């Protein structure tokens, strides 16, 4: 087993009195191996930043323990935790130049000046901020400040690197380039990094594993592929993936060697029993009501499919997103060609039963997944 860089066990965070205040993080347990890059992904208020701040030591842990590199740190002040952090608001020191900001922690750690200069130069090159090293934070753009702040964190040798929305302010082209470089930098040096983000693309591109959080609860902690193919519950199913998964409540009916899924509005999807993968079929046969999830990529237009009505049609430059009124709700499908459909036009769609995700109707927990693992 990989030695643990970070162990969070049974951590609760209350803002206000314990058990009565706002329960921002609930019974969080996760373990991150050395050299891993992990993304905390979720919408605002999901507890991801609170978690990061508890690791850094800026927020008190209400309950539970946090260990960094095998040392219990949750009661130590930030200075003793040996973690580096890049802040969402950059938080550069205004009276210092970008170079001084970056060199700052190294000087505090009593590194030789030549070493400091070399490190600053290499990080500045990595982040393309060589030309602003002598400038003051107030005279550079938001994106440059963000890179300087990121550089200030990456330059340190720490047990953990915490990156809070590290690329939110960068232009898309630069962001894509830097993602690759930063990932390479972190991997090459064997650093362990935790990044907080609400951007799935960023999480997918950078992270080995993604922790999806919602309402202070860790929903699922898995690789990007597994999150897509094996969502643990309806939340991860619909949160991860763009455009989001289509979900419908369905009644399960059986007739001879057929299974039919009756959707609202009297629609019915009829399949041969053998069309499903083994576990999906078995689970469906055990139940009467389920929630089915279908990725937009798994929906196709076909002449003998079930009827739907086009409600939106967007060409995104490399793919078309078609939204359709379907089964009392809305269904999105993706086509890779440029499709032009009139609003209100009738279409017929078919859904490959091999691509179904089945969730429990009351708890929202995943029951079975059709797709074979890639």
């Amino acid at each position, binding site marked *: 087993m990989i030695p643990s860089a970070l162990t969070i066990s049974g951590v609760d965070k209350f803002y206000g009195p314990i058990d009565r205040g706002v329960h921002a993080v609930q019974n969080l347990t996760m373990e991150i191996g050395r050299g891993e890059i992990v993304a905390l992904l979720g919408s605002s208020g999901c507890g991801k930043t609170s978690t990061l701040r508890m690791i850094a030591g800026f927020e008190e842990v209400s309950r539970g323990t946090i260990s960094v590199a095998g040392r219990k740190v949750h009661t130590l002040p930030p*200075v003793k935790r040996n973690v*580096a952090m890049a802040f969402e608001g950059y938080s550069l020191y*205004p009276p210092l130049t970008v170079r001084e900001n970056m060199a700052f922690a190294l000087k*505090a750690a009593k590194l030789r000046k030549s070493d400091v200069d070399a490190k600053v130069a290499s990080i500045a090159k990595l982040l393309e901020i060589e030309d602003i090293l002598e400038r003051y934070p107030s005279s550079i753009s938001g994106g440059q400040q963000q890179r300087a702040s990121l550089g200030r964190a990456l330059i340190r040798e720490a047990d953990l690197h915490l990156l809070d929305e590290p690329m939110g302010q960068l232009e898309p082209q630069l962001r894509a380039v830097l993602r690759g470089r930063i990932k390479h930098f972190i991997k090459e040096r064997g650093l362990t990094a935790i990044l907080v983000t609400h951007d799935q693309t960023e999480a997918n591109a950078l992270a080995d594993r993604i922790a999806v959080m919602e309402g202070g609860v860790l929903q699922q902690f898995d690789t990007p592929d597994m999150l897509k193919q094996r969502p643990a519950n309806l939340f991860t199913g619909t949160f991860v993936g763009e455009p989001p998964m289509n979900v419908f409540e369905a009644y399960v009916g059986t007739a001879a060697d057929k299974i039919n899924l009756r959707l609202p509005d009297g629609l019915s999807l009829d399949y041969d029993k053998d069309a499903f993968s083994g576990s999906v079929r078995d689970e469906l046969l055990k139940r009467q009501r389920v929630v089915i999830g279908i990725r937009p990529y798994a929906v196709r237009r076909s002449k003998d499919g079930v009827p739907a009505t086009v409600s939106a049609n967007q060409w995104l430059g490399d793919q078309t997103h078609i939204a359709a009124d379907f089964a009392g709700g809305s269904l999105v499908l993706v086509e890779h060609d440029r499709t032009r459909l009139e609003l209100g036009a009738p279409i017929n769609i078919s859904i490959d039963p091999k691509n179904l995700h089945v969730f429990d109707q009351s708890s929202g927990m995943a029951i079975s997944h059709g797709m074979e693992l890639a």
Partner: protein
Amino acid sequence: MEHTSLLERILRGIALTLVVIFFMFPIVWILMMSFQTNETILRIPPQLVFKPTLANYTALITGKLTTAAGTLDIAFMRNLWNSVFLSVTSVAVALLLGVPAAYAFARHKFRGSEDIAFTLLSFRFAPALLVLLPLTLYFQKLGLANTYIGLIWVYQLICLPLILWIVRGYFEDIPADIEYAYRIAGHSWFATFRKIALPLAGPGIAAAGLLAFIFAWNNFVFALVLASADKQPVTVGALAFITSSGIQYGQISAAIVLSITPTLALALYAQRYLVEGLSLGAVKG
């Protein structure tokens, strides 16, 4: 300003002139009075042209006030020194106590912190005269009446709440993450307070200190009741110019000129510093 018409600029100029005259006239008039004798001052109508005399200043500095009734000893220079000493020490003590307290109130929300902060502010609500009587009795019992320590203590009622509340606002405006960034880079909270919070709140601390200094300098009633002649500041000492043989307008004016000089100088100096500090400390994020 390129869109303003000539008329607009003329009107603006007139308005500005009126405002300047309104505010500057008393000061200019007092400055003129300070170089005149009582006779020229009291002449009706008043005249702008007169033969300046330094007699008022000489009297103040030598401490000998010559009136129609004879020569009177006045302790003006002593009073001036008392004012300087009391105000400087009071502000220094208030800064020493108030700035860390303001930081604590800004950064650490603890049970009752708002109540304590408000209680400190409420010191400024009570009319001074209301607290003076009990305070005088206490001070006499404690042996603090007519001592510098006692006066500086009472001056904290004026200075401390002012500094606490102004500086607290400045600390709250510093993004906490800047301090966190410093702490996570390997520094204690105390080092963070000294190296990050204090310099960034510098302009605010200077402004609060200046205000507190002016309030302390201008205080009259506390010193009137709690100090006798040798501990009195200029505000109280000026009463000595109302003598049995008349009011010494010339000397009063000279005394006023001398006593507003330190605050005026400080304000002018600090104003420059404030502008510099504010433009340097621009914090984005």
